[in-house]
């Protein structure tokens, strides 16, 4: 099991007769031994290029990649000691599901009996024990994806790379398989990088998440930290479902209070003691301020955010409430059931400890919950 270090890596594609594309810009990322890291971003953010560079399917334009202190970015893929599950499954069509999973083990020095037990255990974990004798073309997409995942995980490798590993899984199985896979990676102390555009998957599996956008690493932190302390407006609004509410705001600080005006009639006022003096200091020099409030932090109460209910949608284990406040839609989520008729008046409140303050000009975070970012 190994430690991966990506230092100052660039990836520049130079298509013929087209402008070069700078897909990954000066990426620095380290993954500890046994850690599960997710590369999260929308399509074109550079996450897949990064994964392909680690796997060796793509040259590194600049910088280096080391695994356990050994530079691997110049080695061919087969010499890197890396196992990978592909988004498109890439199972070998002439082999059965079982042989596909066992494929990489065949060339290892493991005794045949041991190989068989491993394949069987892996198949049990992924709920494909019953289809080991079938061929890839005769099973569903979800089953193929699980087989592809099994083929990667069954190997002994220094590093496991999983490209959108659960995108096609049957919704009913997803939660339980996430749990099993996470338990498996933990038990076997697998150093893992998974690439995904689905933050639910990243949150569920990863110890740390690297959020990428435009080829640049935006933030690298634990799932909890990403939510509580987003580094900028991009990660703030990108991570979290439903997305964070963002308001442009004007701030007025007196000796007793700090007030944020977010509309003609709407203003959030807190005692000054809710904010550290550094935050108040920093706010005084900000020209354009943006306030971010997560839907879960908005509670039905006395205000000050008041408006008409647009929608009140109960989903079984949570309620999504949207109200219109001075032409803007504000979303609040509660774990309990709330029944409000569309059109009725509703007031939401939020405590100072749930406010995220951003400099709207460059997007950088200023403060989270009254403390400097």
């Amino acid at each position, binding site marked *: 099991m190994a430690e991966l270090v990506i230092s100052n890596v660039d990836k520049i*594609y*130079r298509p*013929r007769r087209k402008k070069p594309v700078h897909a990954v810009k000066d990426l620095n990322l380290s993954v500890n031994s046994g850690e599960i890291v997710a590369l999260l971003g929308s399509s074109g953010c550079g996450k897949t290029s990064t994964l392909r560079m680690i796997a060796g399917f793509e040259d590194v334009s600049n910088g280096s990649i080391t695994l356990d202190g050994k530079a691997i970015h110049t080695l061919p893929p087969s010499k890197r000691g890396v196992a990978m599950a592909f988004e498109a499954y890439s199972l070998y069509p002439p082999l059965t599901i079982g042989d596909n999973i066992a494929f990489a083990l065949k060339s290892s020095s493991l005794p045949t009996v041991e190989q068989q037990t491993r394949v069987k255990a892996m198949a049990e974990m992924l709920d494909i024990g019953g289809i080991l004798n079938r061929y890839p073309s005769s099973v569903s997409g979800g089953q193929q994806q699980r087989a592809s995942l099994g083929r990667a995980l069954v190997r002994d490798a220094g590093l496991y790379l999983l490209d959108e590993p659960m995108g096609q899984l049957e919704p009913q199985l997803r939660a339980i398989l996430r749990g099993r896979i996470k338990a498996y990676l933990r038990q076997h102390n697998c150093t893992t990088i998974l690439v995904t555009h689905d933050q639910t998957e990243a949150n569920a599996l990863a110890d740390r998440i690297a959020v990428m956008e435009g080829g640049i690493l935006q933030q690298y932190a634990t799932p909890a930290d990403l939510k509580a302390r987003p580094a900028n407006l991009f990660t703030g609004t990108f991570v979290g479902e439903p997305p964070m509410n963002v308001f442009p705001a004007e701030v007025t600080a007196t000796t007793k209070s700090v007030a944020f005006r977010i509309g003609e009639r709407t203003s959030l006022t807190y005692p000054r003691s809710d904010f550290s003096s550094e935050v108040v200091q920093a706010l005084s020099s900000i020209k354009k301020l943006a306030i971010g409030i997560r839907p879960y932090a908005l509670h039905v109460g006395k205000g000050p955010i008041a408006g008409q209910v647009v929608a009140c949608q109960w989903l079984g284990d949570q309620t999504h409430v949207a109200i219109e406040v001075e032409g803007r839609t504000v979303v609040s989520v509660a774990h309990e059931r709330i029944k409000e008729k569309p059109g009725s008046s509703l007031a939401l409140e939020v405590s100072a400890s749930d406010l995220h303050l951003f400099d709207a000009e460059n997007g950088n975070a200023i403060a989270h919950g009254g403390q400097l970012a």
Partner: protein
Amino acid sequence: MDHTSPLEKLIRAALLAIVIIFFMFPIAWIVLMSFQTNESILRIPPSLIFTPTIENYVALITGEMRTAAGSLKLDFMRNLWNSVLLSSASVAVSLLLGVPAAYAFARFKFRLGEDIAFTLLSFRFAPPLLVLLPLSLYFKTLGLTNTYIGLIWVYQLICLPLILWIVRGYFEDLSPDIEHAHRIAGYNWFQTFWKIAIPLALPGIAAAGLLAFIFAWNNFVFALVLASADKQPVTVGALAFVTASGIQYGQIAAAIIFSIIPTFVLAMFAQRYLVEGLSLGAVKG
């Protein structure tokens, strides 16, 4: 991986050059021939140095062919006109019949539909001569021998299957949802066919029409059997250059140049259309 070595570039260029020479040589040779007299063409050894003459072209346009044995009347311009008329009329008729048929085959499942479509295609399998013998007898009885209508009719054997099968593929590639959406928006099936299906398949229709035109233009054997001199297209008309006193190579070359021009111009024009047709996929979503 995106770097190419100089050696690679060199080899690539050389290979390309070989391919170009291989394919362009006959055409270049014919262009050269068309500017030479028969004597200079038949010179041994052949030489690239000669005095260019437009005599061949003049002969074709005036219809006056001077050979060693004297002057001969020929009506090549008439042949050219016949070719244009026969080919365009045939393609027009084929489009008129073939496009709606292609739409029907693509969109509606009806009894024997596949069989009919295949039968139409199978016309292309049989050697034309096999069909021609009985056909010429019928044509004589019907009085269709040596008429434009008769020839255009027979040319449907060439054009119709081609248009039907190509255009059908294009219609099948169009999402039926787009047509359904148009129906539901309040239009009847004919309006939908006319306003949605036709415009969206237009690149395919153009490509099929062009191909059919070229096939019709290049046809030889139908016209040879079923038409006499005044209705013959260029392909058959060129036989006139094989005279008693020898073969008029220079004039044949000029005639070839003349007969290539229409299809060449059409292809150049339609190229843009064909490329647009290929990007149709981007439209579907």
